[in-house]
C-alpha cells in the first residue's frame, strides 16, 4: 500500500487505522512525504516507531505526486501495489475486494475501487459531488468495465500488479497520471477492471473555487493524454492497434470533448435561431437530464444499495439540481479547460507539479 502526499500528515493516522482494520492483513504500508513543510515527517516517524507502518520515504525537495509514488514503488515488495490518497478512508473489506479480480480473471493489470464521498453532509456542493461520484464512478465505471473500455483508475483507490508497474517503470508526470497509467497498461494488453464492492471514501472540495480548480486540472488530461500522448491508440495502422483500446479513447473524446463543443453550437443555435422554442426545449431538456440522473442514481442503489450509508440514501432529494450542476456548471469548467489546454498547454504551468519538472516536460514536449 503506498500513499504519496505533501502536507498530508494530519490524515495519515486515520488512513493507517483504516488499513489496520482491513479483513486482508498481509499489507506492507509505505508512506511518502513529498517535501512537506509541516509536521508530516514527525507524524511519519511516530507511526514508524509505533510499528504502525512498515516504512516511509521523504523527498527533501518536492518532486511531484508521480515522483513520490515512483519512489515508494521502487522500494515496495508486494505482489500488488494499492495506491491511495492520504485522505482516503477504506471500508474494512476494500483491499480484499480490490485484489479479488486479479485472481478471478486472467491478464488483469489493474483494478479500480469505488470512490465515494466522505464529507457528503458538509453542504450542498458536497452532496452534488456525491451524486456525481455515484453516477460517474459507481455506475459509469461498472458499465465501462463491463464494456472493456475503462480508461481511468482513481488515484484515491486503485490496485496494480507490481510487476506490470515495474515494467512501465511507474507513473509518468501528471496532472492526469491516473488515466495515463491505465492507458499505458492497456497498450501492453492488460485488462483494467472496476470493482464496485471495493469501497473507499474521499473528501471532496468544499468551495466552488477549489472544485473548479480540481476539475480544471482533471479535464486538461483529456487533451494532454487522450488527444495528444495516446492518440496512437486510435490509429488502425498502428501495429499495436486494439479495438477496445481505441474505443476507450474514442468514448472519452466523443462524449466529453466533441459533444461538449457541439453543445455550445447547439445552445448558440437555440438562442439565436429558435428563441421562441428556447423555454420549451430547455424544460424538456431539463426533464430528460433529470430522468437520466434518477435512472443512474437508482441503478447504483439497486446494485450497491446495501453499501449505502444514511447520507447516500437521502441524496435523491438533490437529483433535481443535477442537470444544472453537471449540464451547465461542470460542462462550462470542462470546456474552458479543454480550450486552455488545446491552445496554451495550461497543464504545463500547473503548480500541482514542481516548476523544475513542469519546465522540463514543456521543453521536451
Amino acid at each position, binding site marked *: 500500500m503506498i500513499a504519496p502526499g505533501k502536507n498530508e500528515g494530519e490524515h495519515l493516522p486515520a488512513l493507517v487505522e483504516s488499513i489496520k482494520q482491513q479483513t486482508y492483513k498481509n499489507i506492507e504500508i509505505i508512506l511518502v512525504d513529498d*517535501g512537506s513543510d509541516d509536521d508530516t515527517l514527525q507524524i511519519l*516517524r511516530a507511526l*514508524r516507531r509505533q510499528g504502525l507502518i512498515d*516504512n*516511509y*520515504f*521523504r*523527498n*527533501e*525537495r518536492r*518532486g*511531484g505526486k*508521480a*515522483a*513520490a509514488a*515512483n*519512489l515508494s514503488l*521502487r*522500494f515496495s515488495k508486494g505482489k500488488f501495489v494499492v495506491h491511495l490518497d492520504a485522505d482516503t478512508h477504506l471500508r474494512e473489506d476494500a483491499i480484499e475486494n480490490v485484489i479479488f479480480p486479479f485472481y478471478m480473471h486472467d491478464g488483469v493489470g489493474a483494478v479500480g475501487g469505488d470512490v465515494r464521498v466522505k464529507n457528503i453532509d458538509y453542504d450542498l456542493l458536497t452532496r452534488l459531488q456525491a451524486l456525481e461520484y455515484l453516477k460517474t464512478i459507481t455506475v459509469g465505471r461498472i458499465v465501462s468495465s463491463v464494456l472493456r473500455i475503462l480508461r481511468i483508475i482513481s488515484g484515491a483507490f486503485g490496485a496494480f500488479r507490481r510487476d506490470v508497474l515495474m515494467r512501465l*517503470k*511507474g*507513473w*509518468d*508526470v501528471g496532472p492526469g497520471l491516473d488515466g495515463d497509467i491505465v492507458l499505458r497498461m492497456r497498450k501492453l494488453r492488460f485488462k483494467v477492471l472496476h470493482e464496485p464492492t471495493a469501497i473507499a471514501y474521499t473528501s471532496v472540495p468544499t468551495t466552488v473555487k477549489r472544485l473548479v480548480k480540481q476539475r480544471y486540472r482533471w479535464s486538461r488530461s483529456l487533451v494532454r493524454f487522450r488527444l495528444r500522448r495516446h492518440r496512437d491508440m486510435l490509429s488502425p495502422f498502428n501495429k499495436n492497434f486494439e479495438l477496445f483500446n481505441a474505443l476507450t479513447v474514442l468514448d472519452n473524446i466523443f462524449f466529453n470533448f466533441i459533444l461538449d463543443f457541439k453543445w455550445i453550437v447547439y445552445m448558440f443555435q437555440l438562442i439565436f435561431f429558435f428563441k421562441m422554442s428556447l423555454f420549451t426545449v430547455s424544460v424538456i431538456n431539463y426533464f430528460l437530464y433529470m430522468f437520466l440522473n434518477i435512472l443512474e442514481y437508482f441503478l447504483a442503489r439497486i446494485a450497491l444499495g446495501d453499501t449505502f450509508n444514511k447520507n447516500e440514501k437521502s441524496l435523491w432529494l438533490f437529483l433535481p439540481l443535477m442537470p444544472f450542476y453537471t449540464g451547465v456548471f461542470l460542462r462550462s469548467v470542462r470546456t474552458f479547460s479543454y480550450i486552455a489546454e488545446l491552445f496554451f498547454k495550461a497543464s504545463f504551468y500547473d503548480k500541482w507539479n514542481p516548476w*523544475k*519538472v513542469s519546465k*522540463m*516536460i514543456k521543453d*521536451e514536449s
Partner: protein
Amino acid sequence: MCRNIRHLGSPKVYLKPVIFITEGKLSPRVSAMADAVFSSGDLDGDDLNFELKKIGKINDAIMKINPTEDEREDDLFLRVLRFIFTRGKRIEPVRDRTSFFGITYPQLECFFSKEDYALYNTLEFLEENGSIEGDFFEKVHFCNRCHCSFLNFIEVCPNCGSANLLEENLIHHFPCTYVGPESDFMKGGQLICPKCNKKLKGLGVDYDKPAVIHKCNQCGFVTQEPDVKTICFNCEKESSPEDLIVQTIKVYTLTSVGENFAIYGFESPLLKALREQLNILPYNSFLTLIQLELERSKRYGVESSVVAFQIVNLNDIYAKLGKKTDRLLKEIGALIKVATRKSDVLTILNEGMVVLLLPHTPLKGANVVKNRIVSEIHKLIEENVGVKPSIESSMSEISKKDIKQPDKLVEELLKNLKQVEHKQE
C-alpha cells in the same frame, strides 16, 4: 599519592597544596591535579616566585577554615567545597582522553575513588544548595551503566539493528519522473535513466537528488532515517542515545553562602530537610523533655519511649543522588511526619541519626512506629536510589529504666543501635 593526601582527616592536611616535580611532560589532566608543576632542573626564578605566591594564597585560605568540633570527617561535600574555596574559589573542567569521563575536574578527582561518577553528583548537590554556581561549559553523554564517556555512535538498520548500511543518493529524473537510487542510473560510469534510457544532463538541469537512502546489507531493508545506537568502549553496553546520561559540565565558582559553609561547616542536609516539615528540637531542649518524661513516669506512671535510628551509609546515597538528595530527604521527612503524632518530638544527633521521644507510648507501640519508619525508609531508598540502605535502630522505655539522667539514657540508646534486617514485603 595526591589521592592519599585528599583522603586524610583534618582539613589542614587534606587541603595541603600539592606540587609535582616532573622530568617529562604531563597530560593536561595530571598537571591540573597539582597546584603547581615544576620541571626538574629547569626552575626559573620568576615562575618559581609566581607559583610560590599562589601556594601562599592557598595556605592563607586554609588558615581561614574553622572546623567545628562535632564536624564529620567523612563529609565529602564539605571537603570538595573547602577545596574550591582554597583554590581561588573556582573550579574548571579539563578535556582529557586519558580520563574515564573524557572531561573532568582533575583537582577534585583525588577526593573520589577512581572512575567515580559521584564527582559530578557532588558538584550538582553543591550547586543545588547554593554553595557554588555554574556556567555552562559543555554537554557530555555518559554510558548509563558504567558512566564512561567513550561511546561509539553508529547508524543502524531500524529493521534488524545491523550497522552494515550502505548510503546512497536518490535521483529524481524530471522528464520521466523516475526516482531511484543512484546505482539504478549508473551504466558504464555514466548516469543513464533506467526508465527512459536518456543520459542525464546535469544536476539541477534534468535531475536532482531529493534524499539519501541507507540500504541494510544484512536484511535488505531500505530506510532514509536509520536508528542511532551507542556502544560503550568500556563495558560494551548498547543503548539508544536517548537512554544515555546527558551531563551538563560547568565551570563552578564559589558563592558567598558556599564560602561561609567552607569556613564554618555545613548544616546537615538531613536536618535542613526535616526542619521544613517537622518540629526538630535542639539536643539540649530534647534532653529537657526527656527529663520531664522521667519525672512524669516516676510520679504518674506514664509509659513513654525513646526510639533512635541511623542511616549508616547516607554518604553513599548522597554521592549517588547528587542534586536529587534534597528531594529524597524531604520524602524521608514526610514519611516520619506520617508515622508520628504531633505530640512526638525529635532531634538529630549527627548526619543520618534521628532520635524520637514518643510520650504516652509503651514499648510495644514504639516498636510499631519504629518498624514502620525504618521499613518505609528502606523501601524509599532502595526503590529510588538503587542502593541498599544500612539502617541501625534501637529503642528504650523511659518508665522502666533505672537511669535517671536523660543524657545517659540517650547514650545507652545509641550504644544499643543494631542493624535492622529489612525484608521485602
